[in-house]
């Protein structure tokens, strides 16, 4: 059981502003849980909890990406709150992921609200474009980014510093089976993310590769995933050159097929 001091609350808010802008712009990927949790751990003076929470939350969020314009549950709030809850209440990080989720959903909906309401700025932007008013145009873009940044700071300050006692009481009042349930869910949760990845990537002709990766990791236990990534790289290079050769032979047989039509 630990307290978050006022200063730490402010530091967390400042960090949230930085990684929040990074998420908004999709810049350096500082917004991924593995970085957010580590930074949170450093601020709280408990880097170990930060690292463990980071590893777990990163995996749980691996498939939850904003690719294609869908906004996933917010990875920043998930990261900050998983670490903070594990730190303040002393429960396992696997359990804390579940308790962090409501905060993650809250921030997801705030961002969705901004995505919709920022449409109103576009008429103004059109006017500036018409007038070639570059400075006003730049200010408008800074304003929207600043609104998002400030929101992250405020939400994180309230979720961490202000809400910590309520969170401790909540965790203490939870029966064991409920805590255990959250822990199990934390372990199964990556399944949803991996399902998301497979939804985008898995075409029937790629099933062999899924099986190979699965078999390899099931029967050759190793502490990290590098060996599987290497097997995947080998397969990818093999296919790449096979396709290239195929394409080259096709153009050779076609004899500059594009000319024939003329």
């Amino acid at each position, binding site marked *: 059981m630990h307290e978050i001091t006022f200063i730490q609350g402010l530091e967390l808010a400042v960090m949230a502003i930085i990684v929040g802008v990074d998420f908004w712009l999709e810049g350096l990927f500082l917004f991924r849980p*593995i970085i957010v949790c580590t930074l949170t751990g450093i601020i709280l003076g408990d880097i170990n909890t930060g690292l463990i929470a980071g590893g777990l939350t990163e995996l749980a969020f691996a498939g939850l990406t904003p690719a294609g314009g869908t906004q996933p549950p917010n990875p920043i709030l998930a990261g900050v709150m998983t670490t903070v809850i594990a730190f303040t209440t002393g429960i396992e990080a696997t359990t804390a992921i579940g308790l962090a989720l409501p905060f993650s959903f809250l921030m997801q909906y705030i961002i969705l609200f901004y995505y919709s309401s920022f449409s109103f700025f576009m008429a103004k932007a059109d006017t500036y474009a018409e007038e070639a008013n570059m400075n006003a145009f730049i200010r408008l873009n800074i304003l929207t980014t600043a609104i998002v940044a400030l929101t992250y700071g405020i939400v994180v300050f309230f979720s961490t510093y202000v809400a910590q006692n309520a969170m401790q009481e909540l965790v203490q009042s939870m029966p064991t089976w409920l805590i255990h349930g959250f822990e199990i869910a934390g372990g199964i949760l990556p399944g*949803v993310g991996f399902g998301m990845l497979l939804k985008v990537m898995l075409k029937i002709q790629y099933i062999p590769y899924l099986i190979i990766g699965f078999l390899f990791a099931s029967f050759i236990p190793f502490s990290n995933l590098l060996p599987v990534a290497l097997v995947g790289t080998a397969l990818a290079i093999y296919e790449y050159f096979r396709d290239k050769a195929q394409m080259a032979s096709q153009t050779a047989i076609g004899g500059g097929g594009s000319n024939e039509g003329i």
Partner: protein
Amino acid sequence: MKESNALSSKDLTKLGLYSSFLQASFNYERMQAGGFTLAMLPALNKIFHGDRQKISAAMNDNMEFINTHPNLVGFLMGLLLSLEENNEDRSLIKGIKVALFGPLAGIGDAIFWFTLLPIVAGISASFALQGSIIGPIIFFSVYLTVFCLRIVWTHLGYNLGTKALERLKDSSRIISKAATILGVTVIGGLVASYIHIEVLSQIAINAEHSVSIQKDFFNKIFPNILPMSYALFMLYFLKRKRISPSILILGTFIAAIFLSFLGVL
């Protein structure tokens, strides 16, 4: 094919960095249009020597809907500016922009979100879970490199000009296929390594003996059969039933808590 190079190498490097503002005013109506226009302003100003009419025309065109990939958008910006500089027809420039932003988004998503992220996340998380700071350091280094490559793509787009189009079309399919193969293999490994389902239930045969469902049943069929089944179960809901991931996350929690209450898991 270019008469003059209005933009210096330094201008292009700056353009690559400014391209990071792509989503500064993201919204559902025009998506990245505001940031897309913003990033090109200094370069446009230089190309048109502050001619307000020309700048306004270019800004108006760029304010139309666009949604592409932040890591690769510099390529598109460089290409478009090389056309602007040659005083190409406005409708041609617009046409190329509209034709390219979608495919670029597709390649970018396939490479950066669906291949690179699971691999880097999987590897760095495996270090972090052992309490090693190497995990986040690997993660950060990889994405710092990816970020710096934005500058390279921008130079490439500008220097190749329209020549780039053919090349892009030819190799993008093969590259994204190879990337997908690598990604799918790693996901297979991730499923086996990072989904944890352990059935606690035991079936009592008599007073002394009982059969553990996990050890004597599932592990005998195939280790990790439950994690793989769960991932495929989720895939089915996401793809065939079009259920949102948020609902599936909540469902996972409700199911886990219920099964914990019953003592099954």
